[in-house]
């Protein structure tokens, strides 16, 4: 499902990131742990089709990610990859429902599962709320819902628990696991949050620079 081979990336040539190969089958989960500056967010950006690696190849469901370019890469990302950030980044002029619909619109997928996703994440009653009225935990759940709206094959989460309290952090990790299993999607979580470690056994530690 998700393969990353021989990835190479650096911002300055002397400081290359040491990037391990990744191979995940559908439903499999992976935790990438590492200190700040170890390049774990960089890896996630590369996996998400947001940052082109200098060398190496990433394939998702048989498609080589960076053989696509421009709008077709954008469409592919929208359809197959759900990305969750440290901050929810909900589009504030839109309601919760509209945020999810926008994901459907941009990817070109007709999503009729919006209600069921919202129900499962326990935010169905916030369907018509603006993001400004949501709590931190609710907002993060909306961003998960948005990442799931297109039924992605790969779910990427960048420090999804960093700004949450213990209860919410545990909820979010559980939800991510549950939903990834339900969608049979590969889940990659990047974190340095100790609270996440116990939940996913498949772990890679990034050691920083070569």
């Amino acid at each position, binding site marked *: 499902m998700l393969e990353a081979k021989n990835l190479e990336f650096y911002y300055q040539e002397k400081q290359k990131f040491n990037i391990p190969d990744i191979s995940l089958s559908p439903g499999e989960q992976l935790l990438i742990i590492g200190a700040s500056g170890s390049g774990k967010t960089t890896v996630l*950006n590369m996996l998400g089709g*947001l940052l082109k690696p200098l060398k190496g190849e990433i394939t998702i469901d048989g498609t080589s990610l960076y053989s696509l370019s421009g709008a077709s890469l954008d469409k592919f990302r929208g359809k197959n990859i759900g990305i969750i950030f440290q901050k929810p980044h909900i589009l504030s002029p839109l309601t919760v429902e509209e945020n999810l619909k*926008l994901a459907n619109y941009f990817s070109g997928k007709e999503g009729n599962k919006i209600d069921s996703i919202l129900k499962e994440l326990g935010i169905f009653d916030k369907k018509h709320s603006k993001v400004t009225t949501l709590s931190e935990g609710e907002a993060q759940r909306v961003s998960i819902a948005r990442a799931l709206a297109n039924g992605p094959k790969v779910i990427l989460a960048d420090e999804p628990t960093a700004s949450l309290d213990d209860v919410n952090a545990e909820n979010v990790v559980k939800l991510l696991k549950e939903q990834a299993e339900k969608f049979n999607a590969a889940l990659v979580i990047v974190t340095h949050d100790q609270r996440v470690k116990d939940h996913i056994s498949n772990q890679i530690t990034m050691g920083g620079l070569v």
Partner: protein
Amino acid sequence: MNMLKLSWKYLIAKPLNTGLNILLLALGLAIITVLILIQDQFENKMTKDSQGIDLVVGAKGSPLQLILSSVYHIDFPTGNIDLEDATALTRNRLVKNIIPLGMGDNYQGYRIVGTNYDYLDLYDAGLLEGKRWEKPFDVVLGNEVAAKLDLKVGDNFIGSHGIGSSSHEHDEHPYLVTGILEPMNNVLDKLVLTSIESVWYTHDDEHDHEKFEASVATSGFPDPGDEDRELTSLLIQYRNPMAAVQLPRMINSRTNLQAASPSFEISRLFELLGIGVKLIQGLALVIIVIAGLSIFIALFNSLKERKYDLAVMRTLGASSGQLFLHIILEGVILTFLGALVGMAMGHLFLSIIVNLNEQGAISSLSASVFLIEELYILGYAVVVGILASLIPAWTAYQTDIAKQLTKS
């Protein structure tokens, strides 16, 4: 959800900003709309009213004043001319027809104009009811006069001396309404038309009742009898193009009359007004440019706050082209609404101006006329919107998603 709706949502998320930008642009466009409407209608009206009149002859004075008073009935006459001088002109071979006009009285601000049937025929004026005047003190009312003053065929009224403002009333001779014209949409609507004889007899001191019962002249000049009679002005139609060259010069140099050409004087008037119009146009353009700048600044500033939003849209599958369109659409929606509001305001302004002026030149304008030029306004406004949003849209197009999302 679609691009238009997305841009709209972002606009109404900042109602004050959006409202101000729309209002600013609307103000500029409203001024342009009013100018276009007034200019078009004035020019239309002016040409319509002066149709078929090649030359106006009256007492010496300002030629523009002569035209305004005799053709458009808005200024005061330059004075009177002797009937003898006028009759002399009828013998000129360059003249095809002469329509005499006699002015000097009004009723409730509406001018009473003495003339003959040729004046009605000049404008192809038909009667809505009643018949044309036949005896002295018979009058035919313009459609608006009848409507505004609520006069019907068979009604009597007493004219006042003077034009526009009344000094004393001629209480001895009431006028009798014999006919009402159909709506003409020209200067006739605001006139009370009667025979030259009515105007003469009103100002006579002696009252010869026998004269009052005689039929009036329906074409040419009436018989003055043994009195020294006067007219106010003459509307002349040329017999041939040669007349345009010879007749005005002949009249101006060899008689104590003055000849003025409506088309020449009106183009001179528009030239004079043009300076003012240009000035207002310039002001409107400045406002529109400022509105464009304001939209540009608003979009550019909001872009700073929205870089995350744009990056998130990209992660959801939006292409950079869609982000470009998203910002352009915001500019276009703003200016499109601005144009609509502006045009509505323009028509509203004009209707207020028209309603404040019951009589006179402005009152004949209509605010409910829509011109093709107004569609151009819509077009220009959208161009302003695209121009103003081009740079912000380009910035959005170039958003580096990874960089934007990584820095927090």
